[in-house]
């Protein structure tokens, strides 16, 4: 059963038939259910809230009263100190320089392949899709050893490599591996989505003499906007959250994106639990903002691929 989300491109999901209206007496089973879910949700919140609580307490407060105590003062001093002591701004810029091009290129690449796979029924379609999908599922550590050597060999002009002259240590190199890796999942999702766009639309365009590129860019891509929104949200969080590529493919700390840099920063600059918690939570802020603003898209993006039956 294809999912509602993939099958109907322009409209949103077909909602499941509304439950029959009925009076709602308070049933004990419901109370137990809500009780269980509330407790689970609270337990799920505890780690984040505890880190947040720790991060908001000045070190003097925890030194005087211990960590497991009622705070006598709360404030953002740890956040300001963590930000300044570790000079976090450049790392955030590195993350932006990696995430933005990687998301855009991944979407362009996967849309191109998906367009080809779904609109032109060439024999290699399935082989191509299988190649991309399987590649996407490999653990990154399977390929890292040769990839690392490859990056040390490939020269790159200085303007692309921040002066290292190599793929290794360049933001470009990290963008490239993100694009190569992530395009598998996105190709799969987009090709399913494009398959649901009636063939007649492209045929009409063809009769009108539109070139292949025009069909792609002006007809198919705009129709896939909901899928792009979902995938872009998902990819932004995924790529920003990446720890591994930034850690291994970039040697010097100052060129690393924030998520990869936070481990060494905390060892170097953050002398206590409160600062560490604040530094970690600063790193999580962008993803939390994206999540709260675009939660619907994020969840849809996650389930788009999985839900294809």
């Amino acid at each position, binding site marked *: *059963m*294809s999912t509602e989300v993939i*099958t109907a491109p322009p409209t949103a999901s077909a909602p*499941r038939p509304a439950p029959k209206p009925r009076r709602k007496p308070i049933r004990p089973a419901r109370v137990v*259910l809500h009780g269980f*879910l509330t407790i*689970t949700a609270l337990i*799920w*919140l505890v*780690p*984040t809230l505890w*880190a947040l609580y720790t991060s908001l307490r000045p070190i003097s407060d*925890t030194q005087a009263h*211990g*960590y*497991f105590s009622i705070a006598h003062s709360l404030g953002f001093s740890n956040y300001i100190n963590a930000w300044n002591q570790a000079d976090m701004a450049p790392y955030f810029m590195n993350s932006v320089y990696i995430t933005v091009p990687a998301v855009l290129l991944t979407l362009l*690449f996967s849309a*191109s392949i998906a367009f080809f796979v779904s609109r032109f029924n060439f024999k290699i379609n*399935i082989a*191509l899709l299988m*190649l991309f999908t*399987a*590649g996407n599922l490999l*653990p990154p*550590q*399977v*390929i*890292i*050893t*040769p*990839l*690392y*050597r490859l990056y040390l060999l490939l020269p790159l002009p200085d303007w692309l490599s921040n002066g290292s002259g190599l793929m290794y240590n360049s933001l470009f190199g990290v963008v490239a591996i993100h694009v190569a*890796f992530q*395009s598998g999942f996105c190709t799969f999702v987009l090709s399913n989505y494009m398959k*649901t766009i009636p*063939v007649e639309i492209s*045929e009409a365009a*063809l009769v009108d003499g539109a070139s*292949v590129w025009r069909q*792609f860019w002006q007809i198919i891509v705009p129709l896939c906007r909901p899928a792009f929104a979902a995938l872009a949200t998902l990819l932004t*969080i995924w790529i920003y959250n990446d*720890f591994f590529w930034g*850690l291994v493919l970039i040697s010097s700390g100052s060129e690393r994106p924030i998520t*990869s840099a936070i*481990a060494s920063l905390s060892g170097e600059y953050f002398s206590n*639990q409160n600062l560490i*918690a604040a530094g*970690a*939570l600063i790193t*999580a802020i962008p*993803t*939390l903002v994206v*999540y709260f603003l675009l939660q619907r898209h994020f*969840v849809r993006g*996650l*389930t788009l691929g*999985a*839900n294809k*039956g």
Partner: protein
Amino acid sequence: MAIATPSKTPTAPGGIKKASRRVRRLSTRDKIVLSLMVGIPTLVHICLVWIPTLVSVVLSFTKWDGIGGFDSIQWIGLGNYKEMFTVSPTFWPALEHNFIWLAFFVLLPTPFGIFLAYLLDKNIRGTKFYQSVIFLPVVISAAVTGFIWETIYNPDNGLVNSLIGANKPNSFYIDWLGNAHLNLWAVLIAASWKQAAYIMILYLAGLKSADPALTEASQLDGANAWQTFFRVTFPALKPINIIVLVVTIIESLRAFDLVWVIGGSNTTKPGLELLSILITNNIIGESSLIGYGSALAVVLLVISIVPILIYVYQNFRKEQQ
């Protein structure tokens, strides 16, 4: 299965004919554009993902410290594998930990995520709220998750020891992340925090796509909730079950960030060895044993091929018919 299979993918036999006619009508310029659109992404993917995979296999039969040029690469046959299986003190623990990770994921967070999805699917008030809260850990990077859980597990002032009083003078002292018998389990709980939430969202989407008529029919026939789920809903969701299984296996093999952050540095902490950690240690650690690192990667590859094939088979079976 019957409800799960009908695919709305247009694969009418007429379609192929139409398509081939259309292909012939393409201009040369269109053909060039199309080959570029397919060629560039495919080339990037193959060069950066599949070629390194193959090179990994080749390098696993060699010895190379990476300092000398290519001519310093020595062909040593199965030497790396022999060392890995017989001499290395870290390989077997790592493999064992990867499998413990997998078993733990399969037994606890994954079923719990499915259970949560099942509960949240019952038209209850505030379901979106519960979902948003429980799903939060998935959005937080594994690296940050590591730091968050360090504030929980810290032996002196972490939440757990404070709650159970294990950090008071003259009390027993539990070093959750330092003790080699405990740290894997402590990390697994932190990882489950994310995994259960992830599975919950995946499964919830699957349940939403299930046919409500089936559940109603079985309830009319007098089945209780337990029977309805295990005899009707669960079997009907075979595709999503397979995806959840694949995701669970792959996530257990990919486990890295959390352990790396909690492990603290490039040196592997006893009790927390994983294949992914050993491989990475061979690159950015002190010793750069490229052949040996590749042999470890091949082991990881061989294990991960199983779920990948299951997934590819599941997804493309219909199209191949």
